């Protein structure tokens, strides 16, 4: 069995979630592996992972909550996803409505007279 087995803790090296802890959920083939944890739940190339020494006890294709719980027991800081201001019920500044400047009719008349 390769070092990338189910439950192995690893660090993602490349990509948007680089330098974050992740756990291997499923082994697809020699090159690809499913990961979850502080990263997005995605397929990942094993070259973009750095395995660590401890292995967590989780089943295959475990849910996100159980993976987070197992990581907390192993003593790893969890990064919460930033929820948008709207979801948190915070005060959201209303968008400015651009009002088109209405040119007075009288000014238009004056311009035409000048041209004649």
């Amino acid at each position, binding site marked *: 069995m390769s070092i990338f087995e189910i439950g192995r803790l690893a*660090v993602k090296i*490349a990509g*948007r979630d*680089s*330098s974050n802890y992740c756990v291997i959920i499923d082994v697809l083939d020699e090159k690809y592996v499913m990961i979850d944890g502080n990263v997005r739940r995605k397929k990942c190339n094993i070259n973009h992972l*750095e395995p660590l020494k401890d292995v967590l006890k989780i089943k295959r294709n475990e849910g996100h909550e159980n993976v987070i719980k197992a990581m907390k027991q192993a003593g790893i800081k969890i990064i919460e996803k930033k929820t948008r201001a709207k979801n948190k019920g915070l005060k959201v500044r209303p968008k400015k409505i651009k009002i088109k400047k209405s040119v007075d009719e009288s000014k238009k008349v004056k311009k035409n007279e000048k041209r004649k």
Partner: protein
Amino acid sequence: MKQIRKKLASRVSVYTRKERPGKKTCANCSKVLPGILNFKTSKIRNIARTRKRPSRKFGGYLCSRCSRKMILQGVRK
């Protein structure tokens, strides 16, 4: 601002030309970083941040290969 002197028949004319800032390079291996707009800050102030540089860690400072090396050093210590 770049000054250019041009010799004409009777006089020398001097005019200045605005230059674009240079391409950004990686801090470690000084390769040219892809995906970074090299305009004056006044021009790109209103553009969204994701279009100005990659959203990766060390994005816009290190190239992808050097950022992997830095993270590996941190992990293996």
